[in-house]
């Protein structure tokens, strides 16, 4: 009887396992398939935390199983019954101490990596700056260096650190490209920096992660990473073929609409700073005056 039941449980466990592995740890599990140093670090932290919490969770579930099976209230249960036993210094010390050690280790690494991620990944050789503005309900990417702009997609050179500077001219959103790395909020009146980098060319899914109203579900975009020379070609092509980003055009973009990807051959110098300062940018006035908004580390 017991044998047969164990068999059934094994079967169920095996079924569950295959069910989870079937669509696989395939490429679609984005967080586990990072393509850049930031995503790599975050993936390592996720795996480390899974291992650390398992040290407690697996014994708890195993213990529960054993205890519930062994100490049932049946008339002929031969196991000991000690209704008054309720203290044990050793045991209690054990389960105060073990979690403290686990949390100590995990906490230490967390603090280390939290500080590390504020800095650009790897060596900063000629980083590229992209100014990101979340609008209702679209993403505007401006390239101050290249003097172009795009909407709802962005192209980046692979193997080069990208400094995304984030703001919003609409309710707060969050800029998230899982395969490159974790997200950061885009907030009106703030310009915050997020360092990301792609190790290899490819098309990466990105989306707005913080609810911002009716069109929120449609705020996804692609980040297309190409080799530097292809990226330069792309910039040239946009410059020669796309329409300019005029003030009227921006006013149209700022309306509450859902749009297809767009490209613009100019970027409106000063537009980004204007957006930040009009939406309560007084918190950043000091930096704006020094012309530092591009290099402001939102996290200092």
């Amino acid at each position: 009887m017991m044998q047969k039941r164990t068999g059934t449980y094994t079967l169920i466990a095996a079924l569950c396992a295959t069910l989870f592995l079937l669509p696989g740890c395939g490429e679609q599990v984005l967080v586990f398939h990072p393509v850049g140093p930031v995503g790599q670090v975050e993936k390592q932290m996720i795996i480390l935390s899974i291992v650390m919490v398992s040290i407690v969770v697996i014994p708890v579930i195993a213990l529960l199983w054993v205890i519930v099976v062994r100490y049932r209230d049946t008339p002929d249960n031969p196991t000991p019954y000690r209704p008054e036993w309720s203290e044990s210094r050793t045991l209690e010390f054990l389960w105060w101490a073990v979690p403290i050690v686990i949390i100590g280790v995990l906490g230490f690494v967390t603090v280390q990596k939290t500080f590390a991620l504020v800095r650009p990944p790897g060596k900063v050789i000629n980083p590229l700056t992209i100014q990101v503005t979340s609008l209702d309900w679209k993403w505007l990417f401006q390239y101050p260096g290249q003097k172009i702009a795009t909407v709802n997609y962005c192209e980046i050179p692979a193997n080069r650190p990208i400094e995304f500077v984030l703001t919003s001219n609409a309710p707060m959103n969050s800029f998230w490209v899982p395969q490159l790395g974790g997200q950061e909020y885009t907030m009106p009146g703030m310009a915050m920096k997020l360092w990301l980098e792609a190790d290899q060319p490819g098309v990466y899914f990105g989306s707005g992660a913080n609810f911002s109203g009716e069109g929120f579900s449609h705020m996804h975009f692609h980040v297309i990473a190409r080799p530097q020379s292809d990226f330069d070609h792309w910039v040239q092509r946009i410059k020669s073929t796309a329409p300019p980003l005029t003030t009227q055009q921006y006013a149209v973009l700022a309306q509450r609409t859902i749009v297809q990807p767009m490209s613009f051959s100019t970027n409106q110098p000063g537009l980004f700073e204007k957006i930040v300062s009009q939406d309560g940018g007084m918190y950043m006035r000091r930096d704006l005056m020094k012309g530092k908004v591009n290099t402001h580390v939102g996290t200092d």
Partner: protein
Amino acid sequence: MLYNVENFASHFFVLGDPLIYGADVSIVLVSLAIVFVLTYYKKWGWLWREWLTTVDHKKIGIMYMIAALLMLFRGGVDAILMRTQLIMPNMPFLKAQHYNEIFTTHGTIMILFMAMPFIFAMMNIAVPLQIGARDVAFPYLNAISFWLFFFAAMLLNLSFVIGGSPDAGWTSYAPLAGLTFDKGPGENYYLLALQITGIGSMATGINFFVTIMKMRAPGMTLMRMPLFTWSILAACIIIIFAFPPLTAALTLLLMDRLAGAHFFTIFDGGNPMMYVNMFWMWGHPEVYIVVLPAFGVFSEVVATFSKKRTFGYASMVASLIAIAVISFFTWVHHFFTMGAGPGVNSFFAVATMIIAIPTGVKVFNWLFTMYQGRIRTKLPMLWAIAFIPNFAIGGASGVMLAVAPADYQFHNSYFLVAHFHQVLIGGVVFGMLAGMYYWWPKMFGFMLNERLGRIAFWFFNIGFYVCFLPQYWLGWMGMTRRIYTYLPGMGWTFWNIISTFGAYLMGVGFVFIVLQILYSIRYGERDLTGDPWDGRTLEWSLPSPVPHYNFARIPEVTGRDAWWTMKEAKQKGEMQPELEPLKPIHMPNDSGRPFILSVLFFIFGFGMVFTWYPMAAVAFIGILLSLILRSFEYDTDHTLSVDEIRRTEAAYGRV
């Protein structure tokens, strides 16, 4: 003129959606049915005398529980609608606006109008009985708390058919919830309903804090209190300190919306980040307000159904207090991605992880309470056992979320959704259901059917894992929360289908709970002993249902597990202390004013929602008048004669 009326009506009533027309029809039909039944069976007087005017904590507890179950149904229907919309990519079932309203009300109702009243139900029913008291410290205030909650819940639910529901998420972040981006009355409903129920919650927190500190039976020292009472004490302390920031945040946002202030706007010097901070200064402690009482229930249930003393009582108390204190230092983990800086993020990340330590200690203590015990898997114990693996996984994913760099990848994704549902359902809902099954015979005097309860348990429990485990996976696949539709080709479809199927299983589980209650009302076995589970704490020394004065004689407590000790002494044939003669009992009078006061609050709230200030002003004057009248009321209590007590006790067979 006619045009004006039409224009008004089309904004006032929510039009154009078949689901809402369905809701309109069902609201009217249910209301008519209630009126008909009450009139036909001549029950209006009974309703008023026995329920609407009662100040008896047991009846208030029962009303809290019924309201919580109704709200669980409403929030559950919301959940089923959302899961149906998400079953397939590009599903044409709900529109964006409707979906946004549904997830907003789902969250708001489940936390504030389901979890909160459910814990208030359990504490009302059990705390005075466990500490050997005849009522709470302020019975009249207790009734006010309940009716404020009840009418706040009605106000929020009304938004569905009149004016439109709030749609900015249960967190209602400014500026999205500000006037610039959200014109309609929906957000006003949210702000006023939360504010009104918040007054009730604050009063309950103070009421039970005082009750536990001042009204314990002689001999019941703090370290002899049952762990459920301890958990309520800890929860009350959190309530008292956590609700003020919420009250302030809601008031300021309401001023932004109604009076054109600029606290949280993005223009004119407002700072929306301040709202986010203030909301979570309440919001994080809030999750401990609802989960600590669940821990308390599990402590009672595990000890009772293992026939064993609670293991590590002192550790259990210490960890409750530790959690209560640390819960105030974790709020920033809800927005690590706001860029507060690595120093701030590190502090809150580590503080959050530290909470896992006392929580883990509690889990081990529950396990070792069962170890070398004698486990009976009755319904309350079944839910308690199911809670442990569930909460272990949910807690573990919580620690994972606390790792700030990892959180950048989890935040706002379905990973987060899976985590908080796992701790809130696996912790709070399982805990409250365990509590409901445990104290049901005490409340009503009959047992709930085990068989139907077991069917419900398995549907709900298996459904839970089928629904939420895939959501962890979906989060890793990049699916963000609060999207009403998604594109095919992301690999999300398969897991969404499974998750929706799980939600349906949970729905079936809920239906079986309802069936179980209905069946047992008719066929349930009577509880004649008052102690059906072989309990350990004082509430089981009383007959079921408990007479309205609770204890004919206030018990003398000599140790922990007071009732267990008394039973053992009796079994050993030890000398029983001579019964003291009965004395007259001093009881509070029933009053209709808490009900009327809360109706006035409802009218005030409704007037404010639509900025009909004359209506709000009249109601507000009414509120003040009720408070003044109460201040000049001198006939507030009465005395039960010894004869009356003797008759009641005799009817229970206890002389």
